């Protein structure tokens, strides 16, 4: 049925407005137009029945309200606390705060403090646990005087050897054994080995060993380290 002649609202428009006809929020004029459609359209009436039941269902479940006075008091306490906080944030900064704020934004102070404490703790732990090394690792250049670089080294002498390719322990032992009789080899990786020489090792043997190592194409770097802890670095 075409209701356009008697009604400004189309049926579809009336259908759309039905929820607000049911909840009573339509203007009188629109309401009358929706009612006119309802009178002639059973489908619209069925929809209105569903809406009425739905609105009833949405409203049926009443909450257990709190105490309005108590709730208001609690809110005012929160507002007071918030305003006190705002007042505090408005008070002029002390000079050290201003200086610090220039370095680190105030919002990051707690993170910066934590980071600073970690650094201090790290330094303290580092100081306590730091291994006592005799010298720093010294690269060896046998073309120079090997005794010069050995001058500060206390016994036992430990050489750190870095190879350009993967080598096995037997290979390293072969190199060392060709010059010195007493030694110990420790593998750190496929390309890194430590050679421990006892205190009694002759200086001439050491020089010869360094030359032998230096002449080997696979030996990439030779370092003298003070002790095994240092060698682990």
């Amino acid at each position, binding site marked *: 049925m075409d209701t356009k002649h008697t009604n400004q609202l189309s049926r579809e428009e009336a259908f759309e407005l039905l929820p*607000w006809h049911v909840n009573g929020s339509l203007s009188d004029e*629109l309401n009358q137009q929706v009612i006119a459609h309802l009178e002639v359209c059973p489908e619209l009436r*069925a929809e209105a029945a569903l809406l009425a*039941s739905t609105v009833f269902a*949405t*409203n*049926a479940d009443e909450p257990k309200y*709190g105490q309005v006075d108590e709730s*208001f008091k609690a809110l005012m306490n929160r507002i007071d606390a918030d305003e006190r906080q705002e007042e505090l944030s408005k008070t002029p900064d002390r000079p050290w705060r201003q200086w610090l704020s220039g370095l680190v934004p105030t919002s990051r102070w707690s993170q910066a403090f934590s980071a600073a404490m970690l650094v201090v703790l790290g330094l303290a732990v580092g100081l306590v646990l730091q291994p006592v090394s005799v010298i720093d690792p010294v690269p060896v250049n046998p073309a120079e005087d090997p005794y010069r670089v050995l001058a500060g080294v206390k016994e036992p002498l430990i050489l750190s050897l870095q190879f350009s390719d993967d080598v096995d322990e037997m290979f390293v032992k072969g190199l060392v054994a060709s010059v010195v009789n007493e030694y110990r080899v420790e593998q750190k990786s496929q390309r890194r080995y430590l050679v421990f020489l006892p205190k009694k090792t002759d200086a001439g043997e050491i020089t010869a060993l360094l030359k032998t190592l230096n002449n080997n194409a696979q030996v990439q770097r030779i370092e003298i380290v003070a002790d095994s802890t240092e060698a682990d670095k």
Partner: protein
Amino acid sequence: MGKQVAAGSNRQSAAERDDDRQLMALVVHKDRTAFEQLYKRYYHRVFQFAYRMVKDHGVVEEIVDDTMFAVWKSAASFQGKSAVSTWIFGIAYRRALKTLEKGRKHQAMSGDNEQIYAEPDMHPTADPAAAAQARDLHRQLQQGIDHLSSDHKAVMMLTGMGYSYGEISEIVDCPENTVKTRMFHALKYLKNHLSDSALGALSNPEQKNLWTQNTPIS
């Protein structure tokens, strides 16, 4: 569409809307007495809306508190383009959405999703069979509403509370046509959710007389 819904039709008279505006004007200047009046005007309405959105008494008071705290803090930003009521409900709606978002995470972790539905009061003289059918319809509708998305549920709840679609569009911050579309889809979902017998109850001419009260719009 060009056809306008009467303004301020959520059972709030023009005089009440004016009172709200006057109170807000005072709240902007941090008048605590005016704020208390405004609080007491809206406490139950916001509480009711929040409860119907989240269905959890444990968090409703918090939503009301947060909403009214925001009203106090941002009163100066109220420009008076909308009614005070829709402005406050807009805040409450956003708070409720946030709570629901948090709740979904909590629910997913705890698996706590059981809902107890209120039984409607029937007219004492109602036919027992028809009353049972009506109760079933009511329960199915409540279950269906609970399964709606937050956006659809909000439109449904606000309509139930008597707001016009124009006001709802301001509260949920979307175009009026979107409000109508959401309502259309919400109803479509509910119809699909209802059993044949529940749909049959809708066509029972006695059905609308079974309830002890008519639609109790806040």
